[in-house]
């Protein structure tokens, strides 16, 4: 019944309103000529309306004219009623036609690519790799050889073990399985030494593999061999191995930072310029012009158009130019000291993370323009780092 209604709306119909002391006679008269009528409504005791097909207008008009004591009106309904109203609006008609053509033509292209099954490789990277294999948004569907694309993709990407491409209309549903790569654990077959990363006095050693080259109490300098990866024995000769272990040493480190009382800081003015660039089926529309601001940050985002949850091949790229100004900040002595402490803690976290700090001495030196922080830290830390060494076969 709904299709029937759509058909009537598209093809057009006539609504007849009949006024008479006995309006049912109009129904009977029309019915006798085998004309189908629908949507029959009794508007009042003497008024009735019904719908007929647009082609039956003249026939019904002549039938109703022959009945005495009856008055009637006929009005066109449906899409056909709109045609005379808009027939001279050529721009709108051209736009509609162009729109329909565009929609029709766009069905020949890949609108969007949906990727599922990826865990560690992001969608954008997979799309880039697919594009290298000739499969991208905007590609002509009929020209695509799905099997060739899939096989080529799998050959070029050894980290992907399985791939399926299913075209659902204009949307490509791609399922991939990532290959389980072997765990990148320590390669015990490669020869490594342990050397000192920083100078200090050795206080303890925890050696798992290799031969110790220093003993507790020794003073070592940066780069000195601590544990060797070559172990010699009287029974089997020398063996090459990966030296493993920790060498704890008492170290002495210094940190110095200068905090000026005046410095420039970035402050956003709140003024922004937005530029939009559109992408249809992989082709960009519109240009990006550089901002007229002297100092600005650029933020980019993109959004895919949707209608009723269906993704369209139309992406809006939004670029926001946010203006900022360099603001002069003036600090007092306490403020500068707070910043200096912040800098020191940042350094300590990055350099001495995990170390046992036995003593730290902090001094401030004040000049006319800045404050200087000087820190001396005594700590016990693991100074051993691995260094690979080369071997030659005789």
């Amino acid at each position: 019944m709904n299709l029937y209604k759509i058909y009537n709306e598209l093809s057009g119909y006539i609504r007849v309103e009949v006024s008479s002391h006995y309006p049912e006679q109009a129904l009977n008269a029309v019915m006798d000529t085998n004309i189908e009528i629908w949507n029959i409504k009794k508007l009042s005791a003497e008024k009735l309306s019904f719908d007929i097909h647009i082609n039956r207008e003249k026939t019904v008009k002549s039938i109703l004219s022959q009945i005495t004591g009856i008055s009637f009106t006929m009005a066109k309904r449906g899409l056909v009623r709109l045609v005379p109203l808009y027939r001279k609006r050529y721009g709108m008609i051209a736009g509609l036609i162009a729109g329909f053509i565009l929609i029709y033509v766009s069905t020949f292209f890949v609108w969007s690519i949906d990727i599922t099954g990826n865990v560690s490789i992001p969608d954008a990277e997979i799309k880039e790799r697919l594009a290298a294999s000739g499969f991208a948004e905007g590609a002509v569907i009929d020209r695509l050889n799905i099997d060739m694309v899939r096989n080529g993709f799998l050959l070029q990407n050894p980290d992907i073990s399985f791939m399926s491409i299913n075209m659902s209309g204009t949307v490509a549903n791609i399922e991939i399985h990532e290959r389980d790569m072997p765990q990148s654990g320590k390669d015990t077959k490669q020869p490594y030494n342990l050397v000192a990363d920083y100078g200090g006095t050795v206080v303890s050693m925890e050696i798992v593999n290799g031969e110790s080259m220093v003993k507790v109490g020794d003073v070592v300098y940066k780069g000195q061999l601590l544990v060797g990866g070559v172990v010699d024995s009287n029974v089997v000769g020398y063996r090459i191995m990966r030296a493993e272990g920790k060498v704890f040493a008492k170290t002495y480190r210094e940190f110095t930072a200068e905090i000026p009382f005046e410095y420039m800081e970035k402050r956003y003015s709140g003024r922004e310029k937005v530029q939009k660039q559109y992408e249809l089926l992989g082709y960009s529309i519109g240009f990006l012009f550089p901002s007229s601001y002297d100092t600005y940050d650029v933020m980019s985002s993109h959004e895919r158009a949707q209608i009723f949850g269906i993704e369209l091949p139309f992406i809006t790229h939004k670029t926001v130019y946010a203006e900022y100004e360099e603001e002069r900040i003036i600090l007092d002595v306490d403020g500068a000291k707070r910043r200096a402490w912040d800098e020191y803690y940042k350094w300590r976290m990055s350099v001495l993370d995990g170390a046992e700090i036995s003593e730290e001495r902090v001094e401030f030196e004040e000049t006319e323009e800045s404050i200087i922080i000087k820190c001396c830290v005594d700590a016990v830390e693991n100074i051993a780092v691995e260094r690979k060494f080369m071997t030659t076969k005789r």
Partner: protein
Amino acid sequence: MSKFSDIGHRPYICIWGNSYVIIENLKKVVLYDEEQMILQTEFYLKITGKNLRLKCLNNDNVRVDGIIKNIEFNASPVKGGTGNESL
């Protein structure tokens, strides 16, 4: 032509619960009202109910929608309607 035309001019009536009635071999609509409808076939058919309306109508078929309470068969138009039944 109705598929039941071989049964002559006798009306073929299909009642779907109390929601609609399809009548074939219809001759005339005698009275059309939201609560009462009189249709002429070989005899007169009086349908009473609520929100009654003719859904579609052609040469000899009609469909009456609404909440149907009663269907009566009479040899002549039933009195007591709008007074137009005698027309």
